[in-house]
């Protein structure tokens, strides 16, 4: 009887250990798989961009460019993009990372210019071949979708008063005056993500709202994990993250139309 109990207990322990080690191995396997597939996603995106380029641009890739030439090349590409954007009737956004300037432009006129206080660019962009660079940034990109901590238009609904007494009593607080944490994100049609953080000395008090916004966004990207478990290469969107002052971030976000054009210079 006791021999049988001992045997049962030992086999239970063996089974428990087997399960524990298996789970651990599976988790390590998934993590590694996620890592490998994520790197593959970046390489696939690069390959896709390289394949999309116009054959006429291919000779540029053969050319070895030193830093001076590369700078001139990027300057020309950016100017050409801005010139194309000037033909549109609506406000467009130009991002100049070389000079750390973010601009709103309308018909080629700079209507707002703000200093980019900090930025981060995925290394992916620095690996682009000249022709791929021209393909990506040589024409304007259109914004596909917005995500933001603030509303695009701070509309306040007010019911018409029935008489003059009610009209005098009604007092509406203007929404756009209240201090707000401003963070927004643009996804461009060229599958580039622009993340803009409004941050300055006046915006420290409720910084956690911004963190929460970005954390939620980062958690969204964990759906890639689901893809990798199914042995699928996840979608990779190269990211440019900019930090500008909070009031400027609000003004620029609200000034942009529904589908604005964006020009970028690295």
């Amino acid at each position, binding site marked *: 009887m006791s021999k049988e109990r001992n045997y049962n207990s030992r086999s239970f322990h063996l089974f428990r250990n087997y399960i524990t080690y298996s789970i*651990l191995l599976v*988790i*390590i396997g998934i*993590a590694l798989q*996620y*890592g490998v597939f*994520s*790197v593959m*996603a*970046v390489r696939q995106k*690069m390959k896709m961009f390289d394949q999309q380029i116009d054959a006429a641009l291919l000779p540029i890739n053969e*050319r*070895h*460019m030193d830093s*001076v*030439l590369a700078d*001139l*090349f990027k*300057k*020309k590409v950016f*100017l*050409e993009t*801005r*010139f194309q954007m*000037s033909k549109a*009737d609506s*406000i467009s956004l130009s991002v100049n990372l070389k000079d750390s300037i973010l601009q*709103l432009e*309308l*018909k080629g*006129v700079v*209507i*707002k210019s703000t200093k980019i206080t900090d930025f981060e660019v*995925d*290394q*992916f962009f620095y*690996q682009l071949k000249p022709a791929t660079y021209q393909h990506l940034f040589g024409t304007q990109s259109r914004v596909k979708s917005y995500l933001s901590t603030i509303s695009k*238009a*701070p*509309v*306040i*609904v*007010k*019911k*018409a*008063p*029935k008489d*003059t*007494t009610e*009209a005098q009593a009604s007092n*509406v607080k*203007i929404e*756009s*005056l209240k201090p707000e944490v401003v963070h927004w994100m643009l996804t461009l049609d060229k599958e580039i993500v622009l993340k803009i953080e409004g941050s300055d000395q006046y915006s420290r008090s409720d910084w956690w709202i911004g963190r929460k916004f970005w954390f939620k966004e980062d958690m969204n990207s964990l759906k890639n*994990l689901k893809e990798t478990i199914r042995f699928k290469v996840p979608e990779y969107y190269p990211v440019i993250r900019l930090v500008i002052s909070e*009031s400027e971030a609000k*003004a620029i976000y*609200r*000034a942009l*139309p529904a589908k604005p054009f964006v020009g970028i210079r690295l």
Partner: protein
Amino acid sequence: MINDESNLQGELKTTYSGKKSKLIKFIFWLLMPVIFWFIILFILVGVPYLENRPFIFEKTISAIQENENNSKFGKELEAGIAQVQKKMDRLTPGGAYLIVNTSDNTFSLYRNKALIREGLCSTGSYIKLEAEDNKNWIFQTPKGVFSIQGKITSPVWRKPDWAFVEEGLPIPGSNSSSRFEYGVLGDYALSLGKGYLIHGTLYKRFLGQPVTHGCIRMNDDDLKTVYQSLPIGAKVFIY
């Protein structure tokens, strides 16, 4: 006696190996959270790092010097830049133009591409007024590029329907005398079309705030300078 000793040794061995396996299990369970922590760290930090360094093992491009070709290419690029820059420069008006920021409620006046005056103004409040008969109005300043279509001195305000609805008053006839108010728009007004004006205000304490019904309000001095600087046809950029 010998049997007892060997039994004792056997028991000691069993106790020792039992302790050893317990110790191993203890270390294993102690390490489990650390292993899990490393896995989470790998997913959250390691993978984004690797994504950014996908070409870490790739050889750098060999620096083949093509001096002559490059200098020619450089000259071509410089010429191209100068050409496009010239086109871009031509897009900015040479005369006077006005830029209005509806978010900060400020304006900037330019002449010959140089800033000559800036200050506070008031723009649309973004209030949506809803009347009982399904009529509604949104008081917002339109964004985009406009041009001065008319200039008026001592303007008279012809109150639209919403002005009466907002005050809880009945809407009068279109030519009723109660529609006309004198002296509320300041000394000058500049028309942007579709009923939108740049004008003065009695409520100067609200300058810098979005309180208007869509027009742009300025203080008397700023309005005078803007009126004198902007000819008919001058561009007004609102964002």
